[in-house]
C-alpha cells in the first residue's frame, strides 16, 4: 500500500530549500508518492519522520503468530463483503490454576475433544488459556506444565503477576505461547520477558486512551509482537472498542492500534456467554477467551466463525456426495443437481416441501449453478453418469429413475445411454418440484 502525497508532505520539513532537486517540499512529496524520488535526497528529514513513513507503508494490522498455528490480525477490511476476513478468530477455553493437577489434566483432555465434523468440514477449539488465580507463582508454573503436557493446542498464559509469568513461561517457551498481561504497572518487566523468550504479549489497559499510551511506551522498549486488550468486560463497551480499534487501524492507519485484539467474555450463564462471544467473532476479535467448554455450546459458535470467515467472492459449495431428505426408503426418488449451495438448497427446500423422502445428488461443478456449469462443460452426461453410478444410490433404491433439471433436458438421451437409468426431465425451476412429483406419483 503506497503512501499518499499528503501523508508524505506532513512529515517533510517544509523549508522549500530545493536541495532535493525539487523546487518545493510539496512537489517533492508528490514525486515520492509517484515513486520518482528517494527520501534520502532531503537532508533535513528527521528520523521520526523516516520511521513514520516506513511504518505507514506497512500493513494496517500486524500479523501475530503463536502456539500451534494460530494467526491473529493481518486483516484489511471492516466489512467482509468488501473483500474477505482472512484469519478466523482463535477460540481459547480458559482453565484455572486453582484446579488440582488431576482435575486439570481431565479438563484439558475434554477440551482436546472439542472437535467437530459437520457438512464436510472439520473444526475445533484452537487453544487453552491458563489463568493464574492461585496467587502462587510456583503453582501457576506447575499448572501450565500440566496443561502443556496434555495438549498440542495453542497456549495463553494469563496473569498480571510478573513473577508468575517468569516462573511459568520459560519451560513452555518452545510451544510459543501468548503471554499476558502487560499493564501500566508491570509492562516493562512483562515486555522484557516476552522479548527475551521471543513470545507475543497482550497489552492490557483500561480504555482506548490508556491503551494508546501503553502501546507507545511498550514500543519504545524495542518490541512489537503485541496483542491488544482494551480492558472493558461489558459487551456493549467491548463492541465499541473493537470497532474503534479496527476502524482506526484500517481507515486512519493509526499505528498504535495496528495490532490484533483479544476479547474476553463476561457472562456467566453459558448461553449468554456464547451469544456474547458471537458478537466478538463477527466484530473483529482476533482471539476470544471463553469459559464454556461443552460441545453443544461451542458447535454453533465455531459454525458462525466458519460462516463469517468464508470468502464471499468464492461460491459456497455443498459436498458432492449423495444427500437424503426425509425418511428415505427403497422407493425414494433420486434428483440430480449441482453443488452450488444456492442451487442445492433451492432444490432441497422444494423436495422437503413435497413431503416425499428423496435422494439428491449434487454433481461437483466447482460451485456453479446448473446453466453456468452446463455452459462451462461441467455438467456433462458423462460426468453425471460417473457420479450416479459411483455414489451407491443404486444399492439403496429398487428402481432406476433419475430426475434432472428441466433446463438441461437436452442431455437426457445421452445420460440414459451412459447409465442405463431412465432419465426423467423435471421442471425448469425448482419451485415446480412439488406439483411435478405430485403428477409423477399420481400418474
Amino acid at each position, binding site marked *: 500500500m*503506497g503512501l*499518499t*502525497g*499528503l*501523508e508524505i*508532505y*506532513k512529515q517533510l520539513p517544509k523549508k522549500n530549500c530545493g536541495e532535493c532537486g525539487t523546487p518545493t517540499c*510539496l*512537489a517533492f*512529496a*508528490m514525486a515520492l*508518492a509517484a515513486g520518482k524520488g528517494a527520501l534520502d535526497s532531503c537532508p533535513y528529514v528527521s528520523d521520526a519522520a523516516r520511521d513514520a513513513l516506513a511504518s505507514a507503508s506497512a500493513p494496517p494490522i500486524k500479523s501475530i503468530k503463536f502456539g500451534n498455528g494460530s494467526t491473529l490480525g493481518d486483516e484489511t477490511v471492516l466489512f467482509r463483503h468488501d473483500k474477505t476476513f482472512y484469519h478466523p478468530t482463535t477460540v481459547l477455553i480458559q482453565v484455572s490454576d486453582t484446579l488440582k493437577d488431576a482435575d486439570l489434566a481431565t479438563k484439558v483432555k475434554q477440551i482436546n475433544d472439542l472437535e467437530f465434523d459437520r457438512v464436510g468440514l472439520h473444526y475445533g477449539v484452537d487453544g487453552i488459556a491458563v489463568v493464574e488465580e492461585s496467587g502462587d507463582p510456583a503453582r501457576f508454573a506447575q499448572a501450565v506444565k500440566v496443561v502443556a503436557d496434555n495438549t498440542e493446542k495453542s497456549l495463553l498464559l494469563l496473569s498480571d503477576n510478573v513473577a508468575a509469568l517468569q516462573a511459568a513461561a520459560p519451560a513452555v517457551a518452545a510451544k510459543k505461547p501468548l503471554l499476558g498481561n502487560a499493564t501500566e504497572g508491570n509492562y516493562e518487566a512483562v515486555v522484557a520477558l516476552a522479548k527475551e523468550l521471543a513470545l507475543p504479549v497482550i497489552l492490557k489497559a483500561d480504555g482506548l486512551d490508556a491503551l494508546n499510551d501503553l502501546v507507545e511506551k511498550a514500543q519504545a522498549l524495542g518490541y512489537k509482537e503485541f496483542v491488544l486488550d482494551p480492558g472493558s468486560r461489558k459487551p456493549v463497551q467491548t463492541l465499541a472498542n473493537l470497532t474503534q480499534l479496527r476502524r482506526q487501524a484500517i481507515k486512519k*492507519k493509526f499505528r498504535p492500534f495496528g495490532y490484533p485484539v483479544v476479547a474476553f467474555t463476561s457472562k456467566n450463564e453459558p448461553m449468554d456467554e456464547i451469544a456474547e462471544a458471537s458478537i466478538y467473532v463477527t466484530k473483529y476479535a482476533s482471539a476470544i477467551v471463553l469459559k464454556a467448554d461443552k460441545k453443544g455450546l461451542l458447535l454453533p459458535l465455531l459454525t458462525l466463525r466458519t460462516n463469517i470467515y468464508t470468502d464471499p467472492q468464492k461460491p459456497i459449495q455443498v459436498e458432492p456426495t449423495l444427500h437424503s431428505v426425509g425418511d428415505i426408503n427403497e422407493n425414494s426418488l433420486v434428483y440430480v443437481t449441482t453443488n452450488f449451495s444456492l442451487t442445492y438448497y433451492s432444490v432441497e427446500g422444494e423436495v422437503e416441501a413435497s413431503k416425499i423422502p428423496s435422494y439428491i445428488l449434487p454433481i461437483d461443478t466447482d460451485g456453479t449453478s446448473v446453466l453456468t456449469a452446463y455452459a462451462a462443460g461441467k455438467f456433462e452426461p458423462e460426468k453425471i453418469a460417473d457420479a450416479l453410478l459411483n455414489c451407491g444410490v443404486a444399492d439403496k433404491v429398487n428402481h432406476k429413475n433419475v430426475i434432472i433439471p428441466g433446463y438441461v433436458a437436452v442431455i437426457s438421451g445421452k445420460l440414459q445411454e451412459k447409465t442405463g437409468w431412465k432419465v426423467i426431465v423435471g421442471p425448469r425451476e425448482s419451485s415446480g418440484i412439488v406439483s411435478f412429483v405430485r403428477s409423477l406419483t399420481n400418474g
Partner: protein
Amino acid sequence: MIIIGERINGMFKDIGEALRNKDPKPFQHWAVKQEEGGAHYLDVNSGPAVPTDERPEAYKWMVNVLQEVSKLPLCLDSTNYDAIQAGLELCQRPALINSVPAERAKIERVFPMAVQFNASVIGLTMDKKGIPKDAENRVAFAMELVAAADEFGLNMEDLFIDPLILPVNVAQEHAPEVLESLRQVKMLANPAPRTVLGLSNVSQKSPDRHLINRTYLAMAMAVGLDAAIMDANDDDLVDVAATGQILLNKSIYADSYLKVFRAH
C-alpha cells in the same frame, strides 16, 4: 454521482433578464425542473447580468427565491467572494462554493469561509498563469489545494477538485490529460478529495453536444469522477450517470435503477 444542475446562470437569456427584473419565476421553474431531472445541487451564477458591486445583493435574492421552492443545496458560482459569502449566510443547507483556483490569496479567503459555513469547495487546478496542459501540472495544483484543506481543517471529502476540461474542438489534447488527472487526484490523500467537472465545457460549439457530453461523463466516472456541473434535464446524460453508478458498483442494482437514481 452528484449532479449539479447548471441551468440557473445569467448567461442564459431568461435567467439574465429575470435577475434584472427581480422576477423569481424562471429561477423557481428551473429549480423544480432540474430537481425532477435528477439534480442533487443547483448551480447559481448571476453571470454578467448585474454589476460587480451589486452581486452580493443579487446572490442573497437568488438564494432566497430558490430556497422558497427547492430543498436542494446550492452551488454558489462566482469569482466574487463577497457575493458568495452573502449567499452562504442565507443558505439553509451546506452549500458548495464554486470555485477557488490554487492561488494562495484566494485560498486564504475561501477555505476558512467554507469551514465557517460548513460548505464544500470546488478547487480549480490552475493559477494566475492559466490552465496547465498536462496531467502532471494539474495534479501539482490539486496537491496544493489538498495541503490547504489539511491546513485549514476542511474535510477532504468537502474538497472537490476540478481538473478543468476544455472544449474538444479547440483543445482536444486536454481531454485525456483531464482523465489522467482525475485518476491521480484520488491518490493524493486518504480519504481522497472528491472530483468534479464542468462537463458541458467539453462540447462547447461542437455539433452533437449531447453525445460528446455523455460519452465523456462515462469515461470520467470510470477514472473517479464524483460530481459534474451539467445539464440535469438531458435525460440521456442522466441515464449515463445512473448507469455508471451501477457499473462501478456504487449503487445496488435493481431493474428500476434509472428511476431509483432520480428519486434520490
